[in-house]
């Protein structure tokens, strides 16, 4: 009766009832019971602990389907948690220790030991050290580096400081500005870094002098100056750091900057870790480079601003280069522009070998 109550499908219901009746007639109750149990066993056993173990591992079999059209995701992104732990528990705190520690050490060094002054008076005669083109690229790369470092630090640490300090409205524009600058200036920095590295590569081949230079700690403390050519061991180390770690940071940055080439989530996780470790390390070392180049030693900065250095400075910091280039020294009052004597010649003269 209850079957017929459904109305329009009376015919179908009757047919079904007949079918069921036939089934009931031919199949013995015992057999039916076995069938039911077998069916239940097959139907219920689908999700095994093994299935979930496979899911947990992030593994994707050939018969994995995702209803999102272009999805390349697995069911559980297991590596996401590893990335989170690496970033939040290791990169963030140790990056802060590296950068902050470096700043602290430099400050202490400056307060206790102070600036490295020239030990003899200036002669007033100048040597061309950095031609205009190198200076321009250097300062462009340097400015970009500083912008990228500050925006990068803001992306990693800003939320702990500025959001509560300035409120959401300011924070929103601050952080989105940081991301835009970081993402758009990054590739430009990469290109110019390569140009700069190529331009000054000739000064930076390591040789035996550098070994001795490092053994004496670069003469950082005290009066003495170890022998050095056009570039000393420290400068070369900074060059090669940028030529290795710097380029890795640029490359890993590009991986994250252009997510339209189908790189996977896992690839970008690794790119992020490599990028942040490298960039934080370089930022820490850059603080040292900036210190030595500006307030850390007398007479260094003018080489990169005016292009010329004093004879005394050259003699003390780069004695081997000075010996080669001293003929080209020009009295200060005769300096008119960038190329009073022979343009790039002092560089040519200093080329090793």
């Amino acid at each position, binding site marked *: 009766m209850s079957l017929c109550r459904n109305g329009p499908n009376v015919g179908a219901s009757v047919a079904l009832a007949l079918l*069921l009746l036939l089934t009931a007639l031919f199949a013995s109750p015992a057999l039916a019971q076995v069938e039911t149990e077998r069916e239940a066993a097959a139907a219920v056993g689908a999700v095994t602990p093994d299935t979930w173990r*496979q899911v947990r591992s992030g593994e994707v079999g050939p*018969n994995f389907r995702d209803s999102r059209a272009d999805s390349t995701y697995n069911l559980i992104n297991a590596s996401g948690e590893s990335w989170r732990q690496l970033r939040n528990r290791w990169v963030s705190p140790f990056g802060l220790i590296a950068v902050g520690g470096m700043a602290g050490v430099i400050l202490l060094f400056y307060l206790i030991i102070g600036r490295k002054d020239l030990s003899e008076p200036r002669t007033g005669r100048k040597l061309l050290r950095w031609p205009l083109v190198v200076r321009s690229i250097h300062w462009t790369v340097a400015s970009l580096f500083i912008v990228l470092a500050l925006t990068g630090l803001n992306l990693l640490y800003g939320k702990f400081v500025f959001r509560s300090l300035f409120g959401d409205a300011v924070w929103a524009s601050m952080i989105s500005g940081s991301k835009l600058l970081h993402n758009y200036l990054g590739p430009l920095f990469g290109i110019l870094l390569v140009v700069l590295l190529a331009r000054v590569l000739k000064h930076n081949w390591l040789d035996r002098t550098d070994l001795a230079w490092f053994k004496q700690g670069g003469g950082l403390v005290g009066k003495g100056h170890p022998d050095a050519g056009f570039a000393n061991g420290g400068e070369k180390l900074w060059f090669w750091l940028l030529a290795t770690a710097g380029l890795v940071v640029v490359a890993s940055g590009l991986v994250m900057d252009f*997510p339209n080439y189908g790189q996977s989530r896992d690839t970008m996780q690794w790119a992020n870790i490599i990028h942040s470790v490298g960039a934080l390390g370089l930022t820490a070392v850059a603080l040292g480079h900036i210190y030595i180049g500006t307030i850390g030693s007398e007479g260094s900065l003018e080489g990169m601003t005016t292009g010329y250095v004093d004879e005394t400075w050259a003699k003390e910091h780069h004695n081997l280069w000075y010996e080669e280039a001293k003929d080209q020294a020009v009295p200060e009052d005769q300096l008119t522009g960038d190329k009073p004597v022979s343009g790039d010649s002092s560089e040519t003269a200093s080329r090793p070998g």
Partner: protein
Amino acid sequence: MAQMKFMCDAERCIECNGCVTACKNANDVEWGIQRRRVVTLDDGEPSEVSISVACMHCDDAPCMAVCPTDCFYKTDDGIVLHDKDLCIGCGYCLYACPFGAPQFPKQNAFGERGKMDKCTFCAGGPAESKEEEYEKYGANRIAEGKLPLCAEMCSTKALLAGDAQTVADIFRQRVVKRGHADGGWSGNQRRERERTRAGADLNQADSLAYDATRRG
């Protein structure tokens, strides 16, 4: 306070994608984005199983932990929401999310990500007005006392949404009954009557092969 959770019963999901459609419709989700996805394991094999996934509103949400702008927050109901005004589209939440929930509009050049979009448990998000809220985040059914539409519309009730305790209780009950000779049919009034008549032999009562002629 309630702790809102989704739970998808993989034994019941039939991969109909009704939840995906319901969600997209309820929240007027942007073209190219579907907040919910249905994953099928061992497709076409006897062990085939499907499960519907979206933001699972984690207790210890990885997206919240890694977001550089701190745009995520948790409501009193344990729902993880985010502020699109603060989102910068960096993609870190996507790197960290266990479920692939965050998605980004991709109309910009070079795949630059737009503002992140994800399931809101149909709870909207921070906005000045209702219209703005709907525009940015979709429906706020929770404010109307309703549960997420995906779960509400699930044809097999595989996808459950609601207070964690309630959802867990329902699922626990299912697990206990599942594979039992009584099948999934306990509580059905007709069957309860049959069952009493058949005594202890439940298979006798469990006649899916319903025999109308035997009825008194």
